[in-house]
């Protein structure tokens, strides 16, 4: 005799869809400074609560509070602010260039600038970064010229990757920025391998990697955490939880049942959940994880809690799947505004200086764009020579590619 009720399939749904009024009261935002900073050599199993809370340093008034306050110098803060502002100006300009048909594609990082830029200051110059496609802020903060970035987007004769990649797929060994892949998640185990190599050689360099929360569903996320845990790799594994993966909200990646930081627990790794719009909190978490990694205590998983303010890419229209003003009610504010307020609170900044810097950044980008367009755009001007298309498949061009190059007239 059997008396069982029928099952039903659960399909996670976001709280709000277009036409509805979004609000984030269900997001638990602890007061800044309330989460305690453990020593960076704490046992992972003793600090699992960090995976469920939210590390925040900057309070609503712009003060840095609590034990996670990294107490950095003002010069660094100003540099960080500049990097984020340049990133935003660059994003805006390139977005418009795409809309004007000058480049084929673009992806903005608006609202998420801190999740990348802060790392440029927490890491050493020779540490290696394995970014996703939304870490332009990191490259900018590391000092890579906007000129080079733009040439990449324009696929022109000065494009460092010779027109081979979609816009935004930067690569710069010199700046410790691994060639971006279109395939999600692959860089995560690669970063772990790089970190293992550093340990293998007895060096002191560490690696960091970034993926989106949607990408945590890929098998490579698991491989990265597993290899990092097993071989105690000196690596910082970042999950940028910007709430959306194209049109899918974070519940479709598993965010309904647990935090993404909590994934660390099953591997015996520390998992930190961090206010991703708080430059100082991001910096402090990165610094904690880097200290830990350099002390040969292995990897840390960091969930950077933030919000994707714009569409996924220029091919996307977020108005089709989420309320247009959802971003407005995002409770963690804007990273640039928050850092600005902090600097002002410190008496080290002003609205006027801010405006001036902003104008400078916009000008810099505009000026650079002029230079870049003078070289070549998608529509004309100087491209890499056609024959280069057949190079770098292998170190030496083999017979069949030489033959094809001839056939192509290159």
């Amino acid at each position, binding site marked *: 005799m059997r008396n069982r009720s029928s099952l039903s399939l659960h*399909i996670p749904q976001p709280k709000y869809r277009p036409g509805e009024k979004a609000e984030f009261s269900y997001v638990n935002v602890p007061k800044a400074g309330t989460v305690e900073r453990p020593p960076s050599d704490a046992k992972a199993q003793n600090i699992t609560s960090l995976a469920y809370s939210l590390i925040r340093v900057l309070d609503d008034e712009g003060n840095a509070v609590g034990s996670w306050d990294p107490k950095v110098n003002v010069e660094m803060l100003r540099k960080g602010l500049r990097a984020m502002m340049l990133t935003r100006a660059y994003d805006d300009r390139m977005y418009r260039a795409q809309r004007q048909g000058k480049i084929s594609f673009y992806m903005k990082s608006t609202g998420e600038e801190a999740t990348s830029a802060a790392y440029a200051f927490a890491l050493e110059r020779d540490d290696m970064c394995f970014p996703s496609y939304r870490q332009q802020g990191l490259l900018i903060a590391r000092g890579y010229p906007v000129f080079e970035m733009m040439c990449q987007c324009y696929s022109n004769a000065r494009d460092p990757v010779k027109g081979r990649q979609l816009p935004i797929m930067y690569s710069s060994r010199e700046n410790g920025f691994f060639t971006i892949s*279109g*395939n*999600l998640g692959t860089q995560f185990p690669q970063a772990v391998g790089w970190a293992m190599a550093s340990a293998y050689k007895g060096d002191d360099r560490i690696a960091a990697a970034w993926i989106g929360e*949607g990408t945590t569903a*890929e098998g490579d996320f698991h491989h990265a955490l597993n290899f990092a845990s097993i071989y105690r790799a000196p690596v910082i594994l970042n999950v940028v939880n910007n709430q959306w993966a194209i049109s899918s909200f974070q519940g*479709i990646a598993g965010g309904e049942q647990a935090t993404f930081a909590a994934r660390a627990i099953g591997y015996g790794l520390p998992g930190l959940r961090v206010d991703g719009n708080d430059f100082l909190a991001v910096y402090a978490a990165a610094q904690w994880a880097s200290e830990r990694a350099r002390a040969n205590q292995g990897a840390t998983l960091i969930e950077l809690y933030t919000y994707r303010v714009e569409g996924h890419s220029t091919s996307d229209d977020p108005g089709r799947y989420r309320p247009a003003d959802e971003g407005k009610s995002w409770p963690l504010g804007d990273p640039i505004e928050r850092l600005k307020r902090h600097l002002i609170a410190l008496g080290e900044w002003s609205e006027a200086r801010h405006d001036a810097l902003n104008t400078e950044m916009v000008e810099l980008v505009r000026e650079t764009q002029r230079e870049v367009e003078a070289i070549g755009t998608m529509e004309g001007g100087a491209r890499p020579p056609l024959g280069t298309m057949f190079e770098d498949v292998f170190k030496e061009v083999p017979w069949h590619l030489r033959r094809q190059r001839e056939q*192509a007239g290159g």
Partner: protein
Amino acid sequence: MPAMNMIQALNSALDAMLERDPNVLIFGEDVGYFGGVFRVTDGLQKKHGVTRCFDSPIGEAGIIGAAIGMSVYGLRPVVEIQFADYIYPGYDQIVSEMARIRYRSAGDFFVPITIRTPYGGGIFGGQTHSQSPEALFTHVAGLTTVIPSNPHDAKGLLISAIESDDPVIFLEPKRIYNGPFDGHHEKPVEPWPKHPMSEVPEGHYTIPLGKAAVVREGADVTVLVYGTMVHVALAAAKEAGVDAEVIDLRTLIPVDIGTIVASVEKTGRCVIAHEATLTSGFGAELCALVQEHCFYHLEAPIERVAGWDTPYPHIFEWDYFPGPKRVADAMRRAVEA
């Protein structure tokens, strides 16, 4: 009969099957509320309910693995892989599992799954939104591989794929979603409604798997193509002034050998064209089959026109794409040899 573009035709096929068979369900990245990045599943969740068409995590192996389990239960999952370039994380579930479950269990289990995925270049998608991986499926015993070239076939073939009791890889040439494309990228796109094959019946109908279509009869050279390249071949034949017989394979495996052989025996010459990388592409198999079955009829070397053996380079898209000029040249070489 309504005129549809490829997207509408595919959507109509899915709609018809959701309507007809409660065991049909759809899932994949962004296919639910949003309706897919190419809008092929647009409106289906709204019409048929959230459990019939829903979003999945970004885990292609998980998508295909779950689809296998569902199909064992008796469902007919139709899953979307957002771009063919992103199918590789699921390749193990395809090759080691989906393709061989019927065989290894001696028919005890079988897995009627359709994997839909947009493929091919021509949209400035760069190296990871332009790939044509069909040969990686044609080499795998147990997989049926289908590529439509127009709205009418797309709908009929997709319904056949869903109704097949074998797993089907259904590759959609994304360049022709909105209109036929003959490779002349400098010219404006002519939308589908002007094309006769955009007349798509409402409701259920099928185009049989394993049957090619002769889309242009001709006496001088046989041209074997599929997907976008069908349109390129037709344009090339015109431009070359060659009386080509253009065969749209439609199903790659099992390939319609009868139609191919009959044509090559007639023309004595053969050109094969595809966008995929030349080396070990499906063109190699076609070439091998033709020379094996028609050796004594061949009057000229079989010509292959294909993507170069490089990743699809963003800015050199049109130098990479095997456009009408390259195909026409090959036709001329074939007839003049």
